[in-house]
């Protein structure tokens, strides 16, 4: 199982753990993650406007490198996954954007969205399989009540992301079960934590983060797992002290369960 891997900038700096534990777990599961040789920052927010071309180029370059390497493109950070997957969808479905991007990059072989973009979690579900994963767990996280936080970027818009049921996802809960722990369902697991406005409007981010964490806490969770460095930061730093829960990257728990932490 070989994938081209796009880590993204935050995973090289503030979110090194997310990346490190992902690589260790992948090794334990027989997944070969080949980091793209020259990748650029995806921009961290998907440019929705039809006339935004330059802001999509870095994603397209990553997609083209994966195509040329002959692999699916694996992502890990929720934001990178969101941006790259949606740009890929534009390249496949929006003829105007496709033409302008190709005219600008002038690749040897035109790109039209042929690379498949898969998130690390999707690799676990669709390539490894949670049943197989469960067999490789050496250190089951028995008794741990874990709340999965999906946020917005992995799920929405469902028609493009096609990650899971956008209103009632189950992929992270299935992973939690496979790791031997108990998933905790709570209504705000797919509501926004407000991470994007933490610089612009911290009170909003604080209100949103607190509402997510308190919803998980009320449902009886011991901790929250996430795939997004920004959510990680926001749910921790901006949550009201009285409501705080440990926020952990899902890869860290996975590494723990697989005995490679």
């Amino acid at each position, binding site marked *: 199982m070989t994938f081209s891997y796009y880590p993204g900038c935050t995973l090289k700096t503030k979110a090194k753990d997310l990346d490190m534990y992902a690589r260790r777990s992948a090794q334990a599961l027989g997944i070969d993650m080949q980091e793209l040789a020259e990748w650029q920052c995806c921009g*961290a927010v998907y440019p929705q406007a039809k006339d935004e071309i330059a802001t999509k180029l870095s994603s397209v370059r990553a997609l083209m490198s994966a195509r040329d390497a002959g692999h699916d493109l694996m992502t890990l950070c929720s934001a990178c996954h969101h941006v790259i997957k949606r740009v890929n969808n534009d390249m496949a479905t929006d003829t105007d954007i496709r033409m302008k991007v190709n005219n600008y990059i002038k690749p040897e072989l035109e790109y039209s969205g042929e690379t498949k973009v898969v998130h690390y979690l999707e690799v676990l579900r669709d390539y490894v399989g949670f049943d197989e994963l469960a067999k490789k767990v050496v250190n089951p996280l028995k008794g741990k009540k874990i709340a999965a936080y999906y946020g917005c970027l992995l799920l929405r818009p469902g028609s493009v992301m096609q990650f899971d049921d956008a209103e009632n996802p189950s992929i992270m809960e299935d992973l939690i079960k496979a790791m031997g722990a108990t998933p905790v369902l709570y209504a705000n697991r797919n509501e926004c934590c*407000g991470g994007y406005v933490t610089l612009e409007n911290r009170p909003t981010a604080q209100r949103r983060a607190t509402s997510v964490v308190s919803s998980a806490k009320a449902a009886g969770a011991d901790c929250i797992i996430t795939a997004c460095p920004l959510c990680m930061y926001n749910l921790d730093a901006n949550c009201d002290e009285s409501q705080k829960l440990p926020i952990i990257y899902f890869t860290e728990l996975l590494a723990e369960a697989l005995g490679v932490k």
Partner: protein
Amino acid sequence: MQTEKEMANDIIRRSGVNPLKCMKCGKCSGTCPAYEDMDYHPHQFVSMVQKGRINELLQSKSIWTCLSCFACIERCPRSVEPAKIIEAVRLELIRRQGCNHLKSDAIPELLDDKLPQQAIVSAFRKYSK
């Protein structure tokens, strides 16, 4: 100088949204997690752009408070995609010279040790050109 109507047409084209598909159910504003921080709400963006009331929206604080969480896009029963309209209005403003909302000088004092890069990158992409 563009008229409001011309701006509205640009915004509609840039967003790729057809505001006429809206059936005015208000689900976007019912689901919006940033509602309380907005003066104009997602459903108003759709209807005001359709009516060409752009100047009011350019003054609106909502263009900075939209969380880009796409809940309105996901849940709109008519596939209107209000978040795209809000972003298109924001671009109408920040693409003008001197209208950057976030200036690099302001960054250092906003930082803390744990703040991930993506917070800064995304803020620049959302608020500045």
